[in-house]
C-alpha cells in the first residue's frame, strides 16, 4: 500500500446522523446554493455556519429558506418541500414551480443533499421506490433533484437494517437517476463515486481495509 491521504478515524464510534450532517455542512463551500432533500438531509441546515452565506433552495418555490417556524411564526403559506412551516431569511425570493425546477434542472444549484436506498459505485441513485410489487409509486421531486445540482451528495447509513450494503456494484431498486451522485456520506465512511468507481476519502470507527471486507465494490484510497 502506497501513501494515502485517506483519513482513517479508527479511534471513535461510527458517526451519528447529526455528525454525518455536520461533515456534509463542513464540505459545502461558503456562498453555495443548496437544496436539502426531505428527511435526514434537512439536518445539514443545523450545522451550517450562520456566516457561511449558504442559501437554501426549496423546490416548492423559494430561495433563501430559513429554519423551521415556531409558535406565532407558523404561516400555512410558507413551508418547505416536506410541508413543514419555515421562516424567511433576508434576501429570500419566491417563484413558481416551473421556475423553481428550471433553476434546479438548469444546473444552477451548487449542491443537493439526498437520502438513498442504494447508490452504485458509478453514482447511480435509487431512492424513490423499493420495487415492491404492491408499493404505490411516488417520486415527488426526487428525479429532478438527482440531476439538478452540480454536486449531488447522498446522506445515508452505509448498511441497511438487514445488514446489506447500500453502496452496491449496481442498484437493484428502481433508479432515480443515472450517474448523478458525486459523494456518499455515511456513518462509516465518506466515498467519492463516479465513472472511475469508488474512492474512500475518510472513514470512522474502522479502516479502509476493514471496510473493503464488508463491501462488494472495489475501493480505492484517495491519492496523496
Amino acid at each position, binding site marked *: 500500500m502506497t501513501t494515502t491521504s485517506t483519513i482513517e478515524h479508527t479511534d471513535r464510534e461510527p458517526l451519528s446522523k447529526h455528525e454525518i450532517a455536520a461533515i456534509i455542512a463542513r464540505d459545502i463551500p461558503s456562498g453555495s446554493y443548496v437544496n436539502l432533500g426531505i428527511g435526514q438531509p434537512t439536518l445539514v441546515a443545523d450545522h451550517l455556519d450562520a456566516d457561511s452565506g449558504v442559501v437554501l433552495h426549496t423546490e416548492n418555490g*423559494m430561495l433563501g429558506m430559513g429554519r423551521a417556524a415556531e409558535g406565532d411564526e407558523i404561516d400555512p*403559506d*410558507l*413551508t418547505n418541500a416536506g410541508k413543514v412551516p419555515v421562516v424567511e431569511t433576508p434576501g429570500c425570493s419566491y417563484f*413558481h414551480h416551473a421556475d423553481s425546477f428550471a433553476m434546479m434542472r438548469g444546473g444552477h444549484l451548487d449542491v443537493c443533499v439526498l437520502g438513498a436506498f442504494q447508490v452504485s459505485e458509478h453514482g447511480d441513485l435509487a431512492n424513490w421506490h423499493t420495487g415492491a410489487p404492491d408499493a404505490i409509486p411516488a417520486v415527488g*421531486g426526487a*428525479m429532478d433533484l438527482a440531476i439538478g445540482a452540480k454536486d449531488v451528495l447522498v446522506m445515508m447509513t452505509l448498511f441497511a437494517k438487514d445488514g446489506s450494503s447500500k453502496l452496491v456494484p449496481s442498484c437493484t431498486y428502481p433508479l432515480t437517476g443515472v450517474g448523478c451522485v458525486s459523494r456518499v456520506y455515511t456513518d462509516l465512511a465518506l466515498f467519492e463515486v463516479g465513472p472511475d468507481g469508488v474512492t474512500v476519502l475518510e472513514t470512522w470507527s474502522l479502516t479502509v481495509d476493514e471496510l473493503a471486507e464488508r463491501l462488494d465494490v472495489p475501493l480505492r484510497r484517495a491519492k496523496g
Partner: protein
Amino acid sequence: MSRTAFHDDADAAVAGVRDGDTVLVGGFGMAGMPVTLIDALIRHGAADLTVVSNNAGNGDTGLAALLKAGRVRKVVCSFPRQSDSYVFDELYRSGALELEVVPQGNLAERMRAAGAGIGAFFSPTGVGTPLAEGKETRTIDGRDYVLELPIKGDVALIAAHRADRTGNLVYRKTARNFGPVMATAAASTIVEVRAVVETGALDPENVVTPGIYVDHVLDLAAIREAVA
C-alpha cells in the same frame, strides 16, 4: 371591462366543468390548495375526471373527498403516497383509479409547455429510470434526455392571494407553487382568492398571473361577508 367573471358563489364558479374534463388542481400540501373550489366541484357532480395535481389527496377532505365520491378516473401526480392518502391508496389498489406518476419538475414543465405552445421538450429528468420507459430518448450535446409531452387542462382550479378586477393575480409566499403554471395550461382557469381588489391596486410590476389567463374568480371575502 375585463372578460374575467367574478363570483361570490363557489357553485357558479365551477358550473362550467364537464364530465370527462382534465382538471389541474393547484397546491403543494395545503399551501395554495383551492379547497373551496374543490368542495364546490364535489357538489357540482362532474365525473370521469382526470385530476392533475402534485399529490392525490390527504385525509377525507379536498381531493381525497373528490376521489372518494367516485368522480375521478385518473390521477396524474408526482407524489400520491403519503401518510394519510388512504382514500387514494384504497381506490388505486382496487383498480378503480388509473395513476400516472410524473416527476415533479416534469409535471410543472409539461404544464408550462401546454401553456406556452411548446409541442414537446427533451428533459434530463427521469432518464434511465422506470418513468422514462417507452418514451423517446435522445443524446443532445453529450447529455441524455427523454421527450416529454404537454399536459393541458380543460379546467384549472387554483388559489391566489389577491385578484384585481382585471383578473390579475398575486400569490403569497410558497403558496404560489403550481398556480401560475396551471393558469396558463388550462382552457378555463378558476381561481379562489382571499380578496378582490380594485384595478390599479396591484403594481403592474408585481402581477404574477396576468388577467388573460384568468376566466373565473371566486372572491372568498365576498362569501364570508354574505354569510355574516
